[in-house]
């Protein structure tokens, strides 16, 4: 669920870009691959079947391919493709064709056509200061958890001198700009030097941010980074290409800076602060992507594991030493689900969490009424008030439930479903209490001349999935804004007949 949100937010950003920029983006095969993975399943199918066809495809062919009852999916898929400017429609004869830039780049991504450097250029020479994967994982988790710790306002002192210095200036201003943290004084004027570490406090958006999966968190920050980048006169195409390239790199390999543009080298510095890449010195001519970077374009959390083969993954996991600093403070980046679980939730809404990490406790505190704290665990209770407080902060029930199930104790994971149904339903019901009214923009259809006419159009709208509400008694229905054009089209076509 979190992955879906994330996907849609990246997609929304891309859809908001003008066609010219998108076309330039599609010149990079790595970007094409990443964009392709964001598409819905049916759209992927359509792109694949058009990839090696030179002539355009008639809509009726697609209609034949998709079952009648799934018209809605088809419309959705075509809309997505159009919004991303992946296909162009020839109005005249109702056929579509794949964008030629995208087609060429994607083909070369699949076949390695003309040499391109979008998948990164590995260093030819050996690094004298070579680092291994365990080191990279530790580097990434230190950096990233440093940011999170900073956000919840815990000085991560204590265990094994893991004192993370406050994050760099770039990170601070990014957190501020994204609205994840705000100035305690409440003045928005203080951008730049005045952002002192003490003056910042986490916002409600920031709380929501904490509950997301690591992957989603990174994307949230990167999208904010993109927004900032355009203000700083950085080329969004360069920035996006670099982000998507990072997603296709290989963990534990060093890559050369030679293929990067100036913008991208500047970016590298910021990404280093996030823990996405590792560079020994800022003057170094090579960089290592960390696990945070290489899993960027994985669509689901499970893919945090190496996707090549489960066998390999199992061997690797057994082989690499644990990257956590202590056994109890859980690293957020451990990819073995076995040791990331620490929460036990009972049907009576009591919660026990085996953790002493201030970060985890702070996160739990967002929606749990904490009662007692022991050396290695805390207990608490989920109450209506504590959940409502979270909901008012903008956290959704789904986020809470996802968090609980992701970090469930191995013992609890054996249950099916993981979270007791009573608790799950109750949390959802508490959320339903909050939103009783839903507003949506759209168009109301009234004044039909007959019920048949009403029924025909309403059924069509329902098939497309754009029907928001209908009142058959009074021959009225309401269509969402996006779907209106198609319904109007349909009515006009009927009229023409």
């Amino acid at each position, binding site marked *: *669920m979190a992955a*879906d949100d994330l996907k849609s937010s990246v997609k929304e950003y891309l859809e908001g870009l003008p066609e010219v920029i998108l076309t330039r983006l599609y010149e990079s*095969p*790595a970007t094409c*691959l990443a964009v*392709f*993975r964001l598409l819905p*399943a*049916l759209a*992927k*199918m359509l792109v*694949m*079947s058009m*990839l*090696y*066809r030179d002539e355009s495809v008639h809509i009726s062919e697609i209609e*034949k*391919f*998709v*079952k009648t*009852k*799934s018209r809605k*999916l088809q419309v959705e898929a075509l809309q997505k493709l159009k919004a991303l400017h992946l296909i162009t429609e020839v109005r005249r004869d109702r056929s579509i064709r794949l964008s030629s830039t995208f087609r060429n780049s994607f083909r070369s*991504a*699949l*076949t*390695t056509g003309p*040499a*391109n*450097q*979008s*998948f990164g*250029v*590995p260093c030819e020479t050996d690094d004298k200061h070579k680092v291994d994967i365990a080191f990279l994982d530790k580097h990434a988790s230190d950096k990233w958890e440093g940011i999170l710790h900073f956000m919840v306002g815990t000085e991560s002192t204590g265990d094994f001198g893991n004192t993370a210095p406050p994050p760099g200036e770039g990170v601070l201003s990014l957190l501020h700009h994204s609205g994840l943290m705000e100035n305690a004084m409440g003045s928005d004027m203080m951008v730049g030097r005045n952002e002192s570490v003490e003056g910042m406090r986490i916002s409600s958006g920031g709380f929501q941010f904490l509950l997301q999966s690591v992957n989603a968190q990174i994307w949230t920050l990167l999208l904010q980074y993109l927004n900032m980048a355009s203000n700083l006169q950085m080329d969004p195409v360069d920035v996006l290409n670099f982000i998507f390239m990072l997603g*296709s*790199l*290989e963990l534990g390999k060093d890559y050369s800076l030679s293929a990067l543009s100036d913008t991208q080298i500047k970016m590298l510095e910021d990404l280093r602060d996030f823990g996405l890449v590792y560079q020994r010195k800022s003057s170094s001519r090579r960089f290592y992507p960390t696990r945070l970077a290489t899993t960027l*374009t*994985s*669509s*689901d959390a*499970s*893919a945090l594991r190496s*996707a*090549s*083969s*489960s*066998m*390999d993954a*199992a061997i690797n996991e057994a082989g690499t030493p644990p990257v956590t600093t202590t056994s109890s403070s859980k690293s957020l980046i451990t990819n073995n*689900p076995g040791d990331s679980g620490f929460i036990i939730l009972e049907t009576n809404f009591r919660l026990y969490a085996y953790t002493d990490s201030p970060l985890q406790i702070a996160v739990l505190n967002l929606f749990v009424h904490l009662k007692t704290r022991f050396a290695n665990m805390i207990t608490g209770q989920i109450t209506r008030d504590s959940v409502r407080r979270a909901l008012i902060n903008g956290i959704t029930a789904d986020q809470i439930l996802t968090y609980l199930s992701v970090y469930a104790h191995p013992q609890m994971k054996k249950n099916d479903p993981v979270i007791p*149904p009573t608790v*799950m*339903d109750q949390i*959802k*019901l508490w959320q339903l209490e909050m939103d009783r009214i839903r507003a949506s923009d759209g168009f109301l259809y009234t004044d039909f001349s007959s019920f048949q006419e009403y029924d025909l159009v309403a059924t069509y709208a329902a098939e497309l999935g754009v029907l928001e509400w209908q009142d058959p008694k009074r021959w009225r229905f309401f269509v969402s804004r996006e779907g209106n054009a198609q319904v109007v089209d349909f009515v006009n076509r009927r009229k023409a007949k």
Partner: protein
Amino acid sequence: MNAVDDTHASLGGSERTGSDEHPTLLGIVLDTNPTAWAELENKLSLKEAVESLLIFINAHLSLNNANRVAVIAAHTTGAKFLYPKPPSSSFENGSQSGHTSLKAMSGTTGTANIFDRQTMYRQFREVDEAVVGELDRLVSSATEKSVRSTQSAVSGALSLALTYINRVNSNEDEVKTHARILLVSVSGDLSSQYIPTMNCIFAAQKKRIPIDVCKLAGDTVFLQQASDSTNGTYMKLDHPRGLVQYLLSAFLVDPAILPHVNLSTQRDVDFRAACFVTKTVVDIGCVCSVCLCIMSKVPADGSCPMCGTVYDPQALQKINRKPMVIVKKKPKKKKAKLDSTPVGTPSPIP
């Protein structure tokens, strides 16, 4: 109470629709029968087919980051894993030599930089290098004898694919992985492998693993049944040269959208079976009542060739009875007899 149940159902329902994209494990069985490929040479060479197949594999991997493949060659000498590579083989030098000699084998120049490793997505590169390397080793190890034999170990390769899928699925406990098998077949008759092939089909059916069959040449009865009974796609390509397009459009259907699309498959399926003894396809035959073994003709010793059950000699006699030609005389006689008997109600005897 009912109201509570109701909300539960609706809440549960929304939960399930959330995650509809599961990773897929695709097992590809490539028939590498040298004789069959040689016959197909002018339509589509093995090299071209492998190129298309690699594009297809890459396309499959690009659908979802967690998607995986296993490639198995069904050669005349036996089935062999191409990817993931068997643990024993030292693969690095294999890929080096493999690259050049596969090209040399087909003798065409064409796209020289298939494996320009610098510029390829790492997931793709890993698989592609392994497949080509292993395939080349397989081809170069060909001997006079292996080329002679005409049948490829399709059933062996199918069982390897099935066992691999089973192993991966039982390892994976938290993520649900879909699996399917694609069989690229070129050689003709498989009837000698009827029993193992059918067993594979039943195993796949039970595990709900669809077997898609892409038939480039020849015709096999059982493969139609394989895709039919496992809900797979069977397609005999009319234009093998367009293999890429066929693969990308018909064989790349994600399980998530399977319920929403009309698949192009062959409707009429040949359901004939093969005789267990003579290994030929039979139209009408006998079936052992104990072990269900199929034979075109009951062996001379009057017992089942598989389970050894001794059949009732009288029944055998009935089966083995030559079809009798009805003598012309007989119906005449009958007719005459019929004529002689009075038709209608016999008159009461006084």
